[in-house]
């Protein structure tokens, strides 16, 4: 049996599994027929709807964990709930998506049991000698092939490494609800408040990202990039040099230690294309580089390039679009 810890979101037609959880279920199915999903019942989601969606991705059962302390997210409370169900179900493998919560919850489970945890796996295969795994290092810039021997195999699945595929004849997963027991101490890491921080286009999901790096030269220099992003319904991103100089807030940073973007087009202005920056930009479907250096990495990686000064090119582009 494989247990997959799943996360939920509110979709257009009801409560559904988050994309990375669907991908984790798809990977699980390639390893074992007996796939069981576990979700936390925070009182917000309708688990019947989630069970239906889990069935579409191959889960036979959905186990819901319920307790007063689970109404809001908390790494310790959610991990304790998952840990309890894992002990009860006794699977050989436990998977979660390599998301903020998935990775955090599974790491807590691993720590509680002193079991190994392999994070951000892209491929898994078992043979007589144990498990052969492929995972990412350096934010996706390097693959690692690794062997794992463990009483119970704990893995997180690298988001977007596996395509989520529905089963051919789906049936809703059987919903099994559990009142779990929790130690009160786990309440100490529950979310106490959730604050809305932005309402604009989110960088991670923007269809167009206009990025600026050292070549932009100043905080004011980003005004033209803002204008261009606005005209294209996109968001502004930046390199670490722009963040470190205080030109942009860190939430705009694209890269290994920033945000991963996946727009239709990434317009990279005055960014050299260092490997750590590219780690966050490589899922862009197309890249247009605006750079004075024809040899820059970003130019080599781009579908299109304008080899010139961004301070002339970007305002001219803005003016031309506005004049249409």
């Amino acid at each position, binding site marked *: 049996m494989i247990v997959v810890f799943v996360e939920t979101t509110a979709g257009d037609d009801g409560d559904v599994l988050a994309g990375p959880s669907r991908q984790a279920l798809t990977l699980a199915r390639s390893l074992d027929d007996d796939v069981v999903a576990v979700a936390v019942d925070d009182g917000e989601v309708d688990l019947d709807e989630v069970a239906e969606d889990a069935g579409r991705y191959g889960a036979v059962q959905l186990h819901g964990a319920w307790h007063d302390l689970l109404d809001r997210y908390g790494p310790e409370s959610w991990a304790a709930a998952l840990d309890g169900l894992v002990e009860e179900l006794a699977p050989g493998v436990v998977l979660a998506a390599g998301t*903020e919560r998935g*990775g955090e919850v599974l790491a807590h489970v691993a720590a509680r049991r002193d079991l190994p945890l392999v994070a951000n796996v892209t491929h898994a295969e078992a043979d007589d000698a144990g498990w052969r795994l492929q995972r990412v290092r*350096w934010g996706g810039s390097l693959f690692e092939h*690794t062997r794992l021997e463990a009483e119970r195999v704990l893995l997180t699945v690298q988001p977007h490494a596996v395509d989520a595929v529905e089963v051919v004849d789906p049936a809703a997963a059987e919903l099994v609800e559990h009142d779990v027991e929790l130690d009160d101490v786990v309440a100490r890491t529950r979310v106490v408040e959730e604050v809305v921080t932005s309402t604009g286009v989110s960088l991670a999901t923007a269809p167009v990202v206009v990025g600026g790096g050292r070549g932009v030269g100043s905080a004011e220099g980003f005004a033209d990039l803002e204008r261009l992003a606005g005209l294209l319904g996109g968001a502004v991103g930046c390199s670490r040099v722009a963040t470190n100089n205080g030109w942009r807030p860190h939430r705009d940073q694209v890269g290994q230690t920033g945000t991963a973007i996946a727009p239709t087009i990434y317009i990279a202005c005055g960014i050299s294309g260092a490997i750590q920056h590219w780690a966050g930009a490589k899922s862009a479907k197309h890249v247009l580089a605006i750079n004075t250096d024809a040899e820059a990495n970003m130019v080599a990686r781009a579908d299109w390039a*304008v080899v010139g000064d961004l301070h002339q*090119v970007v305002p001219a582009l803005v003016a*031309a679009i506005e004049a249409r």
Partner: protein
Amino acid sequence: MRVLACIKRVPIPGAKIPLTDDGTAVDDERLGHTVSPHEECAVEEAVRLVEAHGGTSTVLTVGPPDAEEQLRAAVSTGVDQAVLVPTDGADWDPQRTAAAVVAAIGELEQADGPFDLVLFGNESADAGGFQVGIRVAVALGRPMVQGIKEVEVDGDTVRVSRPTGTTSEVYELPLPACLGVREGLNLPRYPTMRGRLVSRKATIAEVTVDGPAGGQSLVALESPPEQEVETEVLGSGPEAIERVISVLEDLKVLT
């Protein structure tokens, strides 16, 4: 208060990550070294908290003797004490690393009292296992939250927040606590001239501890296949605009 920041020495790759001939490690012979930006922020936060509340800041790394360079860099930006937990040079797995950190914290706390806060980078720059800090916190029985970009200490609690896209989750942990922090928590300072001098003379304490190896063993590293792209140069200045616009129209991002 006493604040500990845990860091890891990593190479700084250029446009590509060079591998050794046997493919089991990054060939860092010709590369400079640093720590993850997340950890630079952990170090900076330790210094700021001690500036604001008094006490001592400590930086610790589990790493090869060369990691002294990264410990001294932290001292040059204001950290009071530096501790090296020497390895045999190999990259220890997350369980072994965490066990060594726990043992080292045990020794340091026995000597000088408990740490109110232990800060980790959210994940290391190279291995990216997302777990050492959590393992340490669980072993110490202390609360821990990852992904933190705001820290505010108020008496016996620390109020922290982590962004989730369009919202921010707020947590209030009782001290002593552990945190996994992200770049953006603060803007790390550059070392001062005096800081550099101090760091050159600073004593690096060594704590020799180890833990049992975990179940994970690295077989090989591999560069992902590079997608070859033909770059079409649209021009070298404003005269390229017309062609840029038709690209945007073709992609339907401009209508």
